[in-house]
């Protein structure tokens, strides 16, 4: 089978599997967050933590809860990393250096999982499990909670209450992430991924050399890393390591896991607002962008990257590609990990062709809404949908409405603040890195490619993706600090504006649809939303893309 057919077969299999899960999983997610009853284990957690599960929070209290929870989490993960050598299951690892420990703590609490270290040579088992893996569950649950609170903004009226943050997070972990992660872990173990607490073994190879074989609870971390759109690998080479991703079956299963919840969330949205067609419209936008990105990267990697005998014989650009998965396995994975906020990789993104890598960068710059990170993709696309109906309303001279709520100047201010935050953070940090000696000292590739590497690094961190282009010395203190700040601001500032918008919507009374209301369930609206997304991102990042990706690709 040639690589093009193999790629499309993988895509078709993924599409079929995700389509089959769309309704049942989406309905289940909706039921989790609309259920009036608390499970016994949940009641135990609330009692232990002194939480009143029936308290309804104002949107600003919801935000304060997120910030307080995340602040404690950053400090806790930092403490574990800095003291791991004296704790148990350190497997001989030294305490993590302060800059790496802080960057990593910010990274995992924000669902980014940007890694400036080699996991198997830096983190002990306790740090991996109690520090990083716990945050892979919690940060994913926080993202989903914000999305659900945002949806409540559309369904509630004459109130500023958006639900209970602690209940939403607890339910997300107990009812959704833990059960799916257990299933995912078992499938990965069956596929050959390792899961143990064994010490590292040093063996003598047939050639007489010595090799250290690491262990770890790899399958369980791999499972939540993908289901929660986290992306932080146990090993330095992430999902290209055979202990994490042993074969083509586990490779496609991993891609399936990282797309599963984000693609099912629009169904939950449709279910909660009582109009499933609204969910279909949003998921159609997501599928269109994802499919175009897969097609684009596959095309560039198999047609424009074939200079040289080796690449021609292999039918594609093969530098940095894991030979067990081939070019199709790399292209589908690279797109799926960047359109979600996962950031896990099975091939080297820095080795993608200029335009192939450019699409990966664009996927991230889109704000990761196709389908986006767990929860984050949902509230991101809802805000862009409000912008779209506002633009449509300007065209016909009517007050725009979305899901029965008017989109007035106040709502547009929240939306504008939301989608301006990330470009401001990304372009400011990239500009500072290019314009200062500290930033320049770590740029190993000057010229257009170096610019793309810097842009990719800050876009990835601000959008909480976590994948890297490499070629940039991000372990330098400058990038550890600016990166950590970027991740924290990129995660929580947009959530403040999203929940502010939700609060504003919740205070409104519903507006019945009239003859002049734009129907947001039609192909016309789907096309408009795709257009608005591409134009907004294109206008924002075009200068940087022109100097980086286009200059390199057209050279």
């Amino acid at each position: 089978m040639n690589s093009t057919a193999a790629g499309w077969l993988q895509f078709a299999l993924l599409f079929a599997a995700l389509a089959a899960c769309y309704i049942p999983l989406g309905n289940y997610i909706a039921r989790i967050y609309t259920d009036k009853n608390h499970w016994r284990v949940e009641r135990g957690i609330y009692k232990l933590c002194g939480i009143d599960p029936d308290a309804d929070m104002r949107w600003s209290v919801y935000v304060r809860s997120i910030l307080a929870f995340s602040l404690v989490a950053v400090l806790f993960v930092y403490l574990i990393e800095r003291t791991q050598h004296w704790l148990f299951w350190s497997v001989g690892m030294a305490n993590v250096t302060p800059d790496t420990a802080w960057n990593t703590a910010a990274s995992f609490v924000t669902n980014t999982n940007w890694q400036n270290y080699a996991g198997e040579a830096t983190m002990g088992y306790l740090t991996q499990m109690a520090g990083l893996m716990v945050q892979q569950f919690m940060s994913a649950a926080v993202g989903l909670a914000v999305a659900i609170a945002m949806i409540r903004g559309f369904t509630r009226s004459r109130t500023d209450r958006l639900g209970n943050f602690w209940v939403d997070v607890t339910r997300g972990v107990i009812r959704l992430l833990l059960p799916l992660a257990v299933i995912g872990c078992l499938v990965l173990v069956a596929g050959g991924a390792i899961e143990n607490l064994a010490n590292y073994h040093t063996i003598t190879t047939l050639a007489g050399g010595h090799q250290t074989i690491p262990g770890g609870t790899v399958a369980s971390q791999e499972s939540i890393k993908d289901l929660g759109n986290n992306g932080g690998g146990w090993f330095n080479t992430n999902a290209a390591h055979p202990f994490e991703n042993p074969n083509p079956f586990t490779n496609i299963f991993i891609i399936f896991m990282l797309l599963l919840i984000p693609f099912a969330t629009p169904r939950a949205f449709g279910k909660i607002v009582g109009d499933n067609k609204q969910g279909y419209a949003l998921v159609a936008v997501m599928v269109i962008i994802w499919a175009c990105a897969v097609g684009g990267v596959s095309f560039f990697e198999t047609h424009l990257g074939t200079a040289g005998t080796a690449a021609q014989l292999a039918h594609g650009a093969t530098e940095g590609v894991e030979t067990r998965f081939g070019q199709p396995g790399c292209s589908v994975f690279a797109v799926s990990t960047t359109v979600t906020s996962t950031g896990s990789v099975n091939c080297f993104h820095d080795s993608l062709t200029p335009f192939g890598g450019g699409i990966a960068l664009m996927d991230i710059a889109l704000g990761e809404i196709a389908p986006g990170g767990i929860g984050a993709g949902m509230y991101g696309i809802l805000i862009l949908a409000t912008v779209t109906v506002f633009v449509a309303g300007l065209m016909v001279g009517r007050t725009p409405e979305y899901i029965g709520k008017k989109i007035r100047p106040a709502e547009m201010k929240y939306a504008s603040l939301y989608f301006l935050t990330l470009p401001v953070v990304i372009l400011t940090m990239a500009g500072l890195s290019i314009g200062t000696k500290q930033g320049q000292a770590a740029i190993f590739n000057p010229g257009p490619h170096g610019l793309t590497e810097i842009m990719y690094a800050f876009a990835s961190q601000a959008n909480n993706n976590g994948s890297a282009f490499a070629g940039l010395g991000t372990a330098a203190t400058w990038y550890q600090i600016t990166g950590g700040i970027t991740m924290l601001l990129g995660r929580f500032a947009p959530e403040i504006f999203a929940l502010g918008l939700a609060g504003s919507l919740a205070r409104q009374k519903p507006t019945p649809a009239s003859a002049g209301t734009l129907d947001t369930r039609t192909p016309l609206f789907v096309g408009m939303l795709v257009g608005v997304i591409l134009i907004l991102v294109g206008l924002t990042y075009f200068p940087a893309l022109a100097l980086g990706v286009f200059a390199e690709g057209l050279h």
Partner: protein
Amino acid sequence: MDQRQASFTTRGTSLGVTVWDLFYVGLTIVVFAVLLLILKGVERFER
């Protein structure tokens, strides 16, 4: 994705809080304080 390869043969560092620890704890608090200020600004805008 990871960008720095560390050594397998590592040793523990001495116990004690360094200036860098204080710096990063302080930086964390500052960043969250900025986020809280943004929240307060939005609340003022809301009123």
